[in-house]
């Protein structure tokens, strides 16, 4: 399947850094910020502009957890599984979210409304368990609280 990607944006991202291979990870970050994931065509373009084998670009993209090779949901939920969150019940919070959304960690709902991710530590350890929704931090979560949180976030989001 061919991605429908406006390649010109990728071109301009690469242009900012020239063909500096050192900036490969930074470029991938920016491409992902633009498209929400790393489209195939964009990767091929990066590889030819930086004169790197496509395999090497994919090697980097798959090594780092920050990169997605497929589109993610409109709302991104992330559960912190750092130690401080773990000892305060983060795995129960995750399980409750998996249950409510009907997906497992790393997956997106079929309607691409939500993606559920986990992270090993967000560094907001004093407030564990922490869940972020679209980059917004929510501390002291419990299995019961996340359900309310999800409803509230949806209402706010739709209200705009």
């Amino acid at each position, binding site marked *: 399947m061919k991605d429908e990607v406006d390649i010109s944006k990728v071109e301009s991202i690469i242009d900012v850094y020239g063909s500096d291979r050192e900036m490969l990870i930074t470029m991938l970050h920016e491409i992902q910020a633009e498209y929400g994931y790393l489209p195939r065509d964009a990767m091929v373009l990066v590889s030819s502009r930086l004169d790197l084998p496509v395999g090497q670009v994919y090697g980097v993209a798959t*090594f780092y*957890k920050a990169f997605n090779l497929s589109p993610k949901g409109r709302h991104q939920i992330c559960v912190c599984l750092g130690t401080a969150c773990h000892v*305060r019940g983060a795995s129960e919070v995750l*399980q409750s979210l998996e249950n409510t959304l009907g997906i497992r960690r790393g997956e997106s709902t079929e309607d691409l409304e939500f993606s559920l991710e986990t992270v090993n530590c967000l560094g907001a350890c004093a407030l564990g368990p922490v869940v972020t929704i679209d980059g917004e931090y929510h501390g002291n979560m419990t299995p019961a609280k996340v359900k309310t949180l999800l409803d509230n976030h949806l209402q706010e989001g739709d209200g705009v």
Partner: protein
Amino acid sequence: MRCLLSTEDLSEARRSLEEKGGDRVRIMVCGDTGCLALGGAEVRRALDEEVQKRGLAGRVEVLSTGCHGFCERGPIVVVKPQDVFYQRVKAEDVPRIVELTALRGEVIDELLYVDPRSGERVVQEEKVDFYRSQKRIIIGEIDRIRPGEIEDYIAIGGYAALVRVLEEMGPEEVIDELKRSGLRGRGGGGFPTGRKWELCRSAAGQPKYVICNADEGDPGAYMDRSLLEGNPHRILEGMLIGAYAIGSEQGYIYVRNEYPLAIENLHMAIKQAKEWGLLGNDILGSGLNFRVKVVRGGGAFVCGESTALMASVEGKRGEPRPKHVHTVESGLWNHPTNLNNVETWANVPTIINRGAEWYRTIGTENSPGTKIFSMVGNINNTGLVEVPMGTTFDQMIYEIGGGIRGGKRLKAIQIGGPSGGCIPAELTGTKIDFDALRELGSMMGSGGMIVMDEDTCMVDIARYFVEFLKEESCGKCTPCREGLYQMGEILRDITSGRGEERQLDLLQELARVMRDASLCALGQTAANPVMSTIRYFRDEYMEHITGKRCPAGICRDLISYSIDPEKCTGCGRCARACPADAISGGKGEPHEIDLAKCIKCGSCYTTCKFDAVMKV
């Protein structure tokens, strides 16, 4: 923006900024990620609106600072000049704060911290028990300045150490000062910093690089994030001094992807430093050239390892390489490279300003100075704590941390992240420094300190770290990749009631192989959490293996929930709290749990007010 040309210009700028400070009313709001998560952004917005609405713009100034450390009590607001310390502030408290405290100088009792021992309300920050026993020489200034304003840093004495170095000290003298201070790497290894600088300085080859390792991956540790978010100029100043001493013109700061605010504030700080002539060519007319690039990580724990980090900076997969040749000789792009952790760099200006002799008066003989810990987990006062090395766990937990949450019993302290170990409650009299922790089978790591109460299962904790590292192992070397996988399988057996006693020997054998044969520190230390828990909590392992039960009630396969029909009043709270819809029952009638649906999250257990939910 001004461009400073000489060191005299910088001193002059400081004098004029100091005078400007005066005793205006200033409301300082914590703008750290932690307080923001607790509603700090709304408080800030409300303050701005209130000040504008009342036309106080010239009289009352609202400033967002970095972390105050006492994250448990966020959002934190301090009103100056009286230094009134308000905690757990909400947006609706703002009109009162402006009216009563900022304008009339009155104190609002309800917003003060109440000392749990004396029951008294405390007005000033330094009198709060959490702060009293700390020695905040590195993080103390974070809550006095705005991270986005270089003037604030300069006004409190920032970049004075750089000036001193450029004016009065040769590169060797700087290295000598660092060596005499006894500063050891705060990233966890504890390698003497001055010695590292010296090795890099004397290494052959140009250019040389200095790197700030801000890939703070240890779960439970966030002092580096707070330093970068709250006081980025201190890190830049440390790196500038290092660059001068080592002879480098290019620096890198490698920040983990999960710290967006730290990255933003660093970019801002670098831009300002350039405008002020503190980065670039001929810095302060001294002839020193230095530039800094921020590199954003990709979410890989292993990149905290120095050689993996350097591969990542080069735009490659972050895989470590053997260190037969040390990175100070051949690091980034095969050039001599000096890498230090954020907190280490942050110590440098203080050592130059106050001198090595003064620095050595703090801490222990072999570990001078302070250490910043993030004290988190099942403790009352969570937050960032800076104490002299040699402070005991007991002092930290009870004097500063206010004891264990919910009046529970302390079981263990996990320190050092996934490379560290669990220290049992019996050993909390230990004085914390690099060597003492190593003797206990743990390590300093970056200073994440997770306090665990009696409801924590130590086998589960061991399994947690093994699963963590299994995911994060880069897979390059077999002992780490396969060893962790096998350890994970064994621990899964034990935590699900299928374990056998001989598996404990197998775990120890695997641990030895991984320690001796892994390529990098990730694999070499990966077994520490398993080994330390077997060493101190063998009984608990045996309970899982022979008794087929989890004494702490954590391992899901070994527990189940049920409702006591005698005690259940049929109030329905548990059914509403259940995220799996596993609880049913008519109003006023005893409820029941459908074990097929139950996900064992414990929501019903914590919600029930009548002790009717039983965990066995």
